[in-house]
C-alpha cells in the first residue's frame, strides 16, 4: 500500500494554504487516487450536446481515466455510459463519433443494448437460464454513470452514484456558461469542427492553474507576443491603422502587470473561478457589423448590452475545464498520468450569430492553443520544465502565496486583485475536499 490511500490526513497535509507539496504533481499514487476519488465525486465535463444531435449519435471520450460514451437516446435525452461491454469488457465503441442506430451491439459476441445502456438481447440466451444471470449486475446492460446534467448544451456527469448535486457543485459559477451561450441571439451554441489535440508531458493541474496565472503572459509569451508587437511597429503603419485580426488576438498578451492587476479575479466555492472581472484581453476586439442589432432584437437593448459588456477572460470549472465566454472556446485537460495530459480545445459557433465571430474564434484557437502554435510552445515549455524540476530534492513545496491572506474562506464568492493566486488555492481547497469526502480512514479503523 502507498502512503496516501485511505489516509485523508496525509492528503490534507499536502496543502498548507499558501503552498502545496510536489507529490500532487509527480506522485503516481496521487494520480490514481485523483481518478478514484476526485474525478468520481466532482461534476466533470463530457461534451457538448451538438456533438450528438440526432438519436443514436454517439461520441466517445474520457472522464478522468474512465472511457465513456455520450449518446443521444431514443427519447432525445443525452446519456453517458461506461464504454465497456458487461460481458468480457470489450469497448463498445472505438471510433470518436458516429451513429449506432437504435442500439449498441458489441462486436465480440453480439450482446446488444438500448442507447440508455439497458440490455436488449443476447444470442443463445437460453444458455443463461437457471444460472442466476438475472441477479448479476452484468446482466442489466452497459453501466451508466452516476448522474448526468445537460446545462444549456454542455454535458456534465458525476461518476459516483451518490454525491454533491449539480447545483451545489457549480452554484454562481454557471454565470460564465450563461454568458457564453447568451451571446448567441438564439441562445444556443454548436460545436465547430473537431478539437485541437495537444499532448503535454506534465500534470493536468499545471494547465488548470495556468488559466488564472496572470503573471506569466508578459514573461513566458514575450517570445511570441513581444515579437509580434515589435514586427508590427517595424511595419510603421500610419497612425490609427486598425490592427489586423492576428494582432488583435496576440498583442494583449504583452499587456503590463497593471492591466492584469486591474482585471480582477473572482473565486467561487468548489474550486471554480475566473479572471477578467472588469476587463480582459478579449475586451478590445473590433465589433462585427450587424451583430449588436441581432442581439438587441433577440434580448432588448439593456440585456444585449449587459451580455456583450461582460468580458470574462478564463473561467475555470474545477476540476479540469476552462471556457472563454467572449470567444466561445472550451479547453479540457484530460489527465492520462501524473506526468501526461491531453489538452483538447473546442470552439463553438453562435447559432444565428455572424460567421465572422466563428472565424475569429477559429483563428484564436489555432494561434494560441495548437501543437503548432507559437504561444502554445511558450506554455508547454514552462509546464514540462516544472514537471522535471519538481523532482529536485532541493525543495519539496510549490509556492502559491501571491496575495495570500491567513485563514482564507473559500466558501464565499470573492473578487480580488487580478494577480492573486487565490484561485489556485481555491482549486486545492476543492481538491482536498473531493479527494477525501468518500475516502476510508485506515488509521481510524485501526484505532
Amino acid at each position, binding site marked *: 500500500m502507498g502512503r496516501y490511500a485511505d489516509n485523508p490526513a496525509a492528503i490534507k497535509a499536502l496543502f498548507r494554504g499558501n503552498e502545496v507539496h510536489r507529490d500532487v504533481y509527480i506522485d503516481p499514487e496521487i494520480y490514481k487516487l485523483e481518478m478514484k476519488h476526485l474525478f468520481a465525486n466532482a461534476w466533470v465535463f463530457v461534451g457538448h450536446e451538438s456533438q450528438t444531435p440526432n438519436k443514436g449519435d454517439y461520441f466517445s471520450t474520457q472522464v478522468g481515466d474512465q472511457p465513456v460514451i455520450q449518446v443521444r437516446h431514443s427519447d432525445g435525452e443525452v446519456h453517458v455510459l461506461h464504454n465497456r461491454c458487461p460481458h468480457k469488457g470489450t469497448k463498445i465503441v472505438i471510433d470518436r463519433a458516429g451513429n449506432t442506430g437504435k442500439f449498441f451491439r458489441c462486436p465480440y459476441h453480439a450482446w446488444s443494448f438500448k442507447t440508455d445502456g439497458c440490455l436488449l438481447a443476447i444470442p443463445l440466451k437460453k444458455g443463461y437460464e437457471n444460472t442466476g444471470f438475472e441477479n448479476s449486475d452484468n446482466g442489466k446492460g452497459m453501466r451508466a454513470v452516476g448522474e448526468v446534467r445537460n446545462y444549456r448544451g454542455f454535458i456534465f456527469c458525476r461518476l459516483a452514484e451518490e454525491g454533491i448535486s449539480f447545483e451545489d457543485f457549480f452554484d454562481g459559477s454557471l454565470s460564465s456558461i450563461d454568458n457564453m451561450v447568451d451571446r448567441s441571439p438564439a441562445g444556443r451554441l454548436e460545436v465547430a469542427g473537431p478539437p*485541437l489535440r495537444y499532448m503535454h508531458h506534465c500534470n493536468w493541474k499545471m494547465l488548470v492553474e495556468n488559466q488564472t496565472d496572470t503573471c506569466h503572459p508578459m514573461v513566458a509569451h514575450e517570445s511570441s507576443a513581444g515579437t509580434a508587437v515589435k514586427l508590427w511597429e517595424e511595419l510603421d503603419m500610419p497612425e490609427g491603422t486598425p490592427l489586423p485580426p492576428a494582432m488583435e488576438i496576440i498583442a494583449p498578451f504583452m499587456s503590463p502587470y497593471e492591466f492584469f492587476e486591474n482585471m480582477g479575479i473572482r473565486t467561487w466555492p468548489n474550486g471554480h473561478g475566473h479572471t477578467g472581472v472588469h476587463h480582459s484581453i478579449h475586451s478590445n476586439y473590433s465589433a462585427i457589423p450587424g451583430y449588436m442589432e441581432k442581439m438587441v432584437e433577440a434580448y432588448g437593448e439593456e440585456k444585449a448590452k449587459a451580455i456583450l459588456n461582460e468580458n470574462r477572460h478564463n473561467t475555470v470549472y474545477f476540476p479540469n475545464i476552462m471556457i472563454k465566454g467572449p470567444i466561445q472556446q472550451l479547453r479540457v485537460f484530460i489527465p492520462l498520468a501524473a506526468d501526461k495530459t491531453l489538452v483538447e480545445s473546442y470552439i463553438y459557433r453562435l447559432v444565428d450569430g455572424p*460567421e465572422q465571430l466563428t472565424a475569429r474564434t477559429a483563428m484564436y484557437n489555432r494561434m494560441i492553443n495548437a501543437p503548432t502554435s507559437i504561444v502554445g510552445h511558450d506554455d508547454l515549455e514552462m509546464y514540462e520544465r516544472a514537471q522535471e524540476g519538481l523532482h529536485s530534492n532541493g525543495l519539496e513545496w510549490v509556492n502559491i502565496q501571491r496575495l495570500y491572506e491567513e485563514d482564507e474562506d473559500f466558501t464565499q464568492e470573492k473578487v480580488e486583485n487580478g494577480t492573486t493566486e487565490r484561485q489556485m488555492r481555491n482549486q486545492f481547497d476543492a481538491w482536498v475536499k473531493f479527494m477525501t469526502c468518500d475516502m476510508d480512514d485506515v488509521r481510524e479503523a485501526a484505532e
Partner: protein
Amino acid sequence: MSVSKDQLIDFIYDEARMLDEGRYDEWLALWLKDGHYWMPLDYNQTDPINVTSLMYEDLFMLKLRVERLNGARTFSQKPKSRCHHVLQRPFVDEMDEAAGTFVTKTFMHYVETRLDEQFLLALTVRHDLALADGKLRIANKRVDILNCDAAFRNIQLLP
C-alpha cells in the same frame, strides 16, 4: 518566360532544403505577399476559416514565426529544434503556361527533433506556384498530415 517541369520540381526541392537549413529569409522571399500556409486539422478539410486548422498563416504570421525562433527569450528553442524533409519526386498536376500558374503535389516524410525527442510526420504537400516578375513564387501551400487528427506534441518548425 516559360517554365519547365524540371524547374518546378527543382523549386520544390530547393524550398524543402531552405527549411531544413534554416534559411528563413530566403524562404520568406519565395512567397507572394498574399499567400497562405495552410495545415488542416481534419482529414480532407475544405474550410480554413470557420473551423480550426493547425495553421492558416499569412506572411505576417510566418514572419513572426521564424523571427521568434531566434529570439533571445524564446525558451522553447533553447536548445533549438532541427528538421529534415525527405521528398518523393513531386507530381506536376497543373501547368497553365498562359496564366503562369502551376500546381504540384509532393509526398514527404518530415522529421523534427529537439533534445531527446524526435517525431516523424507523413505529409502530402500541395504547392500553388505562380510566376511573378519572371520568378517562380509560392502563391499558397497546403500541408496535410497523414495523422492530422492525432494528439501531437510540439511541432515547432515548418513541415
